[in-house]
């Protein structure tokens, strides 16, 4: 079946969120997390870190305001750690 647009959007958003958090909040990529220590902060925790940083409502979910910030052009230097 053709992917329903909202599901397609959802997949795109999830990918956007993961890439953003990997780039700017040190979310481990799937490859990395397989080998790294146990203290992997799941995506939700990293998402909350980003929401705190930008003064957004801390939901741990990719809500509209959070996605809007993630789509804004920005500096490539990470927000947490270097």
């Amino acid at each position, binding site marked *: 079946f053709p992917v329903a647009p909202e599901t397609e959007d959802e997949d795109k958003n999830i990918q956007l969120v993961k890439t953003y958090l990997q*780039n*700017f909040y040190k979310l481990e990529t799937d490859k990395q997390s397989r080998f790294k220590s146990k203290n992997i902060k799941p995506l939700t925790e990293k998402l909350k870190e980003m929401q705190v*940083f*930008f*003064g957004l409502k801390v939901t741990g979910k990719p809500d509209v305001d959070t996605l809007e*910030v993630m789509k*804004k*052009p*920005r*500096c*490539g*230097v990470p*927000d947490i*750690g*270097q």
Partner: protein
Amino acid sequence: YVLTDGNPKWERKNLTYRIVNYTPDMNSADVDKAIQKAFKVWSDVSPLIFKIIYDGNADIMISFETGDHRDNSPFDGPDGFLVHAFQPRNGIGGDVHFDEAEYWTKGSNGYNLFLVVAHELGHSLGLSHSTDPGALMYPTYSYTEPNEFRLPQDDINGIQTVYGHSGNPIQPTGPTTPVTCDHKLTFDAVATMRGELLFFKDRYFWRKHPQMTEVQLNFISLFWPNLPSGIQAAYENTERDQIFLFKENKYWVLSGYDLVYNHPKSIYDLGFPKNVKRINAAFNDENSGKTYFFVGGKYWRYDENRQSMDQGYPKKIIDEFRGISKNIDAAFQYGRYIYFFIGTRQFQFDPNVKRVVSVMKSNSWFNC
């Protein structure tokens, strides 16, 4: 502000920089100027001195790169992330790489090179991203007219924590970001816009929908890059779906997010005498189609239908709006009331009984 993990800093105060290559988007003299102006932003508030060199290795190498440029941080094409810089250290430390896939300019279109360089140099000097939305070191890009740019106080505090003050006998200060629920908050201008309320202050405005709890703080330039900061008066003509914004003896007309005219108009076209240099506040009375302009202790009344000032004005504010003294900051009409803002207080005036019926905090609309 946030200092970079490990507090890296340059041990020398004299640093060199080199522009390794140029973007074809701008002429090279404008690139030189933008970068020089960006270094001055930081040298004005710190003991650092920057000198350009034209070959060999400089402390801060500035270049335009595309995609994967062998520093383990490939660029991502247009938009997304625009640029990155490395913290103070030898070798690649301090260097700034711009994504050539972006469109670099000296104006408000594309990405303004001066603003982005100034931000990146903060990283080159040891600053990380700030959580203050008004700070230069905030991660997301926002346009400010370069000639109006002043380094925010948050960034000054950051760089002076790392390197100390400049030798300047007068310590430069910078703008601070207004806090939505600051009980001392005052406004420059307030207007309705298509059912929402716009509260203007410095280079910001809050956007509030009366039925919603959230209030959004934005840069004016985010919506209207060609508007100045420091708007002094504003009102909406709902019939014409236009907002009029005033600063000094000029005004701009908005229709939604668009500027109706590319250039500001003169308030004297509305019929003000030449001795009026600025307007303190304005509101439009939807019922009568009259717009009230407040200047000092007086007010004028303008007929939007005839597009001219009514005769017999100015009159004293106190004569028509009992309880409202002079030097009003802002005013707007909402429902049957007129709201006047004077400093941290807001006066709800009922024109039917011609008196103030309630006094509130200026930011009472923000549900603090």
